């Protein structure tokens, strides 16, 4: 399940959008014990000014992204705008049966997008 973008395109400024990954959807529900799914989220939106300069609580701003947005606003060219990508991620743990019927708990880093940023 994903949050639809406004107007069907990558509308609005760069921010985190809701994406729920269901293990049933990908057919792993028989061997994944928990969780049933998780909020992975994704990043989408424009990285023009001033979105490229997030507020005090946003991810650190990259000078390169600001320069690029400035160049694009002054003279749009092939370089284009910075990209809206994950800036802060968090882990999840998955409990499942493996092929030898062992019960396994694995910890995976960088599975959930908490914050997006322009890069």
């Amino acid at each position, binding site marked *: 399940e994903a949050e639809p973008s406004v107007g069907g395109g990558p509308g609005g400024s760069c921010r985190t959008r809701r994406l729920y990954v269901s293990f049933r959807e*990908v057919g792993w529900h028989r061997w994944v014990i928990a969780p049933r799914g998780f909020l992975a989220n994704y990043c989408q939106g424009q990285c023009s000014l001033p979105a490229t300069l997030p507020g005090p609580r946003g991810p650190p701003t990259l000078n390169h992204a600001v320069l690029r947005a400035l160049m694009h606003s002054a003279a749009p060219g092939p370089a284009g705008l910075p990209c809206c990508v994950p800036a802060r991620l968090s882990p999840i743990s998955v409990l499942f049966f*493996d092929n*030898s019927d*062992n019960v396994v708990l694995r910890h995976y880093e960088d599975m959930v997008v908490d914050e997006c940023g322009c890069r």
Partner: protein
Amino acid sequence: PGAPGPAAALLQALGLRDAPQGAPKPRPVPPMMWRLFRRRDPQEARVRQRQTPPGAPLRPCYVEELGVAGNIVRHVLDRGAHTWTPEPSATGQCPQWTAIFDLSAVEPAELMSRVRLELRFVAEERAPGTAGGWELSVARATQGVGVGPVLLRQAVVSLRMPVRVELLGTAYAHNTSVPRSLQLVLALSPLATGTCACLAEASLLLVTLDPRLCHPLARPRR
């Protein structure tokens, strides 16, 4: 055959060689594994944070409850055949059990940080003459002779609770790679004359660290 296309790529990214085939044999999930999962699951943690004051953030690649480094915890059931009739042999000795643990799912890059053997016995009524408890001995099973030298002996006071034996440091040295199979010969002797016990279940709690899946701790924001 491995899963085709993107599913294979995703499984590989998750460090899994292939998706388990078919539905697994239904078996209860051990309470310890549930506890470990709930302690680490961020969504459960968020619920917990609302209920309890924020504590220190969980360290990646570390299992707080067990106090060891690790990012993979496995509960492995014994595949050996138990002797259900606890009758002493002609020499009066209690029967031995051979526990066999299939560890082929463990990757060579994984390093053991905890290997705990857990034995559950059929709860015995306090038989006359078993005062004083028992002694458990653990040896490695070997080809041919069958039983290698005793690796460790452990006093057991009661059989009502699971008997836990730490094997790391005795059966295995720290930071060694995991063998594909672990075969142990177990013997439980009453310290005084008495009846023999029945082993109900043998399992292994194996904690390993796969360094490839560990990121260095991110620097705190200036």
